């Protein structure tokens, strides 16, 4: 699932760069750098959460790690 997030962010980057070239502006490329930074940070945090989840719940299935009342 985290890999799908990376795919979607890549798609967004591609769109930004396409429009940046279409409009002959550099703004798209600057924003793509921002998006890549955010994606890297979010991937690191998400993977850390997954490691902790697997240690606490002994499973990677979030449906089984549900401790809510209902």
């Amino acid at each position, binding site marked *: 699932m*985290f*890999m*799908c997030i*990376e*795919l979607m962010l*890549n798609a967004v*980057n*591609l769109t930004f*760069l*396409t429009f*940046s*070239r279409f*409009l002959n502006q550099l703004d798209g*490329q600057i924003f*793509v*750098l921002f998006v*890549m930074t955010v*994606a*890297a940070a979010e*991937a*690191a945090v998400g*993977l850390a959460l*997954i*490691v902790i989840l*697997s240690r606490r719940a002994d499973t*990677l299935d979030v449906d089984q790690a549900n401790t809510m009342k209902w």
Partner: protein
Amino acid sequence: MEYIVFYGLATVAVTAALVVVLMNRAIYSALALIVCFGAVAGLFFQLEAQFVAAVQVIVYAGAIMVLFLFVIMLLDPQSEKFSPDRLKLITVIALTFGAFLAFVLVQVTFQWSATMGGLFGRPDRRSPAIGREHQGSGSFTLSRLSAAL
């Protein structure tokens, strides 16, 4: 020549993305994602964004995917299996959204000048007389696009 490169890289990227989504084992998905990032970096290069392409290879394929691979090998997830009911539900939802997305994409492709006119406010240069009418239909396409997004 440019078209050959573009279509080749695009085919590789789409196929690798499909492999990411469809494989049972996570390690195969991660390796396919690395291939996808390489193809997309080639597309970035073709869009004259050479720095972004280099950053993509270094950061995405070189750091993020290595992190992914480490976590996958550390946790050793079991291969996933869906129950038949869940698989049917997922197929129905995916086909519905896929049909809607295909509809929007076809609209954007065949009314390209109208869409661009509506998005950027520049009427089609070849037909200034009916530029305003194109802008009208372009904003309708834009509203449909934004609803899909």
